[in-house]
């Protein structure tokens, strides 16, 4: 009996400590949407996974975003106020993204948030931003079929990456395609689009295989691919699986000449871990490479290396995150305020020269006009552009402009 008394006492004490700690913060005021601009600084949120499996990728995007904030502050800030980043860790865990987003909006009252990588983290944050009427800038290419009024998508949607990738394969005369992907939303959606495209363009899909995230045993899958003898493989694997897949494919004697593997989730950063030996010569599809030749990119790469180290590489999602900060700043300048609705209204039509070339915000679906670029991985680990779309492509997240894609999104 005495024991349980004591136990409960401890429980009370702990709960009380937790409560006072929780309550220590200033009480909430309800006007979250304008609060970010109060005082002589503007708080902006940065929400990426700094721990867990996604940290590998997301940390680099955070770095690029912090660089952009630093540069903007150095040139006078936004509306005469300096930006103060509030960095939170999404911990590679989707509910944590939702929780931290709530914290940034309600407690820190940030003017806007830059964050997310996986579709799952975006889907988890979407209701939080929509209901609080707060802004999220999402910097990664994704599967489309979404257009939230409170999210700006600075990475590619499917018609700026997947479809140009297919156009490229078609141009190269690759007719028989094998689809390999990680088992989650982006690859499955991408592959649906690919199958519809193939049906309309006389291409043949020889197989479609998915492996769990983090899967590392690819000998069976390699056997299936080799036996099917496709002209090319369309690869939507994510993360560490790419390492195992390319190593095992390479040691099975598959060469980039006879069977190119087009990847849409392998960028400069990932090449190092896969090993150049295993992947050199294979094509990838993005909107930006470290080697992209624009004046803005020269500056970006130099600044990034100066800040984070000469051995660091820049990649598409990093550039999209870097852009996001500049695009938001431009919209706020145009609106004359950081108030969310005003920024949203002002954003449409803003066009800025970015490292990837001219980027224009589509006011209708809040995606960007972006130039599609196909690159080939070089023996030095960088990616050389071999093809581009010539001009920025209008974003079309629901693929309404493609007759063969009707029915994919159920209207």
């Amino acid at each position: 009996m005495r024991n349980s008394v004591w136990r409960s006492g401890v429980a009370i004490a702990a709960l009380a400590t937790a409560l006072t700690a929780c309550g220590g913060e200033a009480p909430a005021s309800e006007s979250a949407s304008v609060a970010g601009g109060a005082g002589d600084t503007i708080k902006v949120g940065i929400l990426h996974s700094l721990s867990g499996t996604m940290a590998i990728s997301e940390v680099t995007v955070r770095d690029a975003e912090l660089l952009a904030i630093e540069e903007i502050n150095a040139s006078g800030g936004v509306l005469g106020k300096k930006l103060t980043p509030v960095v939170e860790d999404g911990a590679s865990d989707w509910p944590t993204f939702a929780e931290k987003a709530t914290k940034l909006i309600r407690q820190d009252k940030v003017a806007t948030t830059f964050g997310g990588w996986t579709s799952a983290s975006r889907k988890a944050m979407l209701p939080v931003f929509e209901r609080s009427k707060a802004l999220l800038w999402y910097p990664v290419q994704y599967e489309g079929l979404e257009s939230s009024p409170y999210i700006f998508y600075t990475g590619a949607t499917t018609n700026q990456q997947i479809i140009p990738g297919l156009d490229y394969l078609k141009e190269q005369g690759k007719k028989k395609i094998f689809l390999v992907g990680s088992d989650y939303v982006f690859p499955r959606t991408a592959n649906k689009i690919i199958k519809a495209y193939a049906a309309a363009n006389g291409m043949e899909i020889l197989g479609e295989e998915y492996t769990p995230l983090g899967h590392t045993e690819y000998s069976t899958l390699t056997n299936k691919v080799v036996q099917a003898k496709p002209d090319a493989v369309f690869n939507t694997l994510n993360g560490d699986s790419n390492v195992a897949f390319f190593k095992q494919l390479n040691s099975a004697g598959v060469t980039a000449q006879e069977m190119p593997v087009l990847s849409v989730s392998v960028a400069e950063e990932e090449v190092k871990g896969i090993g150049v030996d295993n992947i050199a010569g294979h094509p990838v599809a993005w909107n930006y490479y470290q080697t992209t030749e624009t004046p803005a990119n020269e500056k970006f790469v130099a600044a990034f290396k100066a800040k984070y180290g000469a051995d660091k590489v820049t990649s598409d999602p990093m550039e999209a995150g870097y852009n996001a900060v500049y695009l938001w700043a431009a919209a706020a300048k145009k609106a004359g305020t950081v108030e969310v609705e005003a920024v949203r209204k002002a954003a449409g039509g803003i066009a800025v020269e970015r490292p990837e070339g001219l980027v224009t915000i589509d006011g209708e679906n809040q995606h960007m006009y972006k130039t599609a670029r196909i690159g080939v991985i070089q023996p030095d680990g960088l990616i050389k552009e071999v093809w581009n779309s010539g001009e920025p492509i209008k974003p079309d997240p629901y693929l309404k402009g493609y007759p063969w894609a009707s029915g994919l999104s159920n209207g």
Partner: protein
Amino acid sequence: MEAFLNQLPIGLSIGAVLLLIALGLTFTFGQMGVINMAHGEFIMAGAYTAYLLQDLTGRMAVIVALPVAFLVAGLMGLILERTAIRHFYGRPLDTLLLTWGVSLVLQQLARDLFGAPNVQVQAPTWLQGGIGPLPYNRLFIFALALATVVGIWAYMNRTGQGRRMQAVMQNRQLAAVSGINTGQVDQRTFFIGSGLAGVAGVALTLIGPVGPALGTYYIVDAFLVVVAGGLGQLRGAVIAAAGLGLLNSYAEFWSDASLAKVIVFAAIVAFLQFRPQGLFVLRSRALT
């Protein structure tokens, strides 16, 4: 048909990987009842050993690293055993939580030492290419697994140390009263078991990613091999690894990789209905 036939050697080579990652566990788990969740991180340590040796030895790193990784991971295991685990005998479930804590710390340590992104270990050039469906690097792993099994068998049956190890495994108390220093045998077992994880780690650099999360990809599979094979049973582990490898290979061939994992789990639960103690059991009359 060719694809179907190819799955046979592929299944066996998957089995060889499973065997390598599980061998060390069968002994630490079998002899000491220690569920070492940090086993995966010892594998990771082996892989990073190969990565570090690359600077000195170039493409031969994988070969040179085999004995070095054995020592590195073995020493890590020994330190773990000396500082923590030896206070936990008789509390296997507590060691599970303890070693999980250790594994978290080691993962973060690797992240801080080597960076979060994967690193690359270059395979020797003579391991490129292959025979039929099996690349040379798979054959290399196969041979390595085979050599390890033979080595362990010889150690257990042909050396005094190995026989003492078997004695402790079969009856700890009896071994202790027969004058065997069980504490010393435990240290040795833990050293060898952890060292084997290091060897497995080197082999895995040939086929998989080398990064801080490496261990987490293999640990559950390794434990399943041990459960199916029976504790401390060399032949059990060999047969279980081969069986699970083949099952995996054919299940994935007929369905997909996700379903294959579920099928393997269901098969193990079903198998335990017939053999609740795994393939091979040490009989004991003790009432537990």
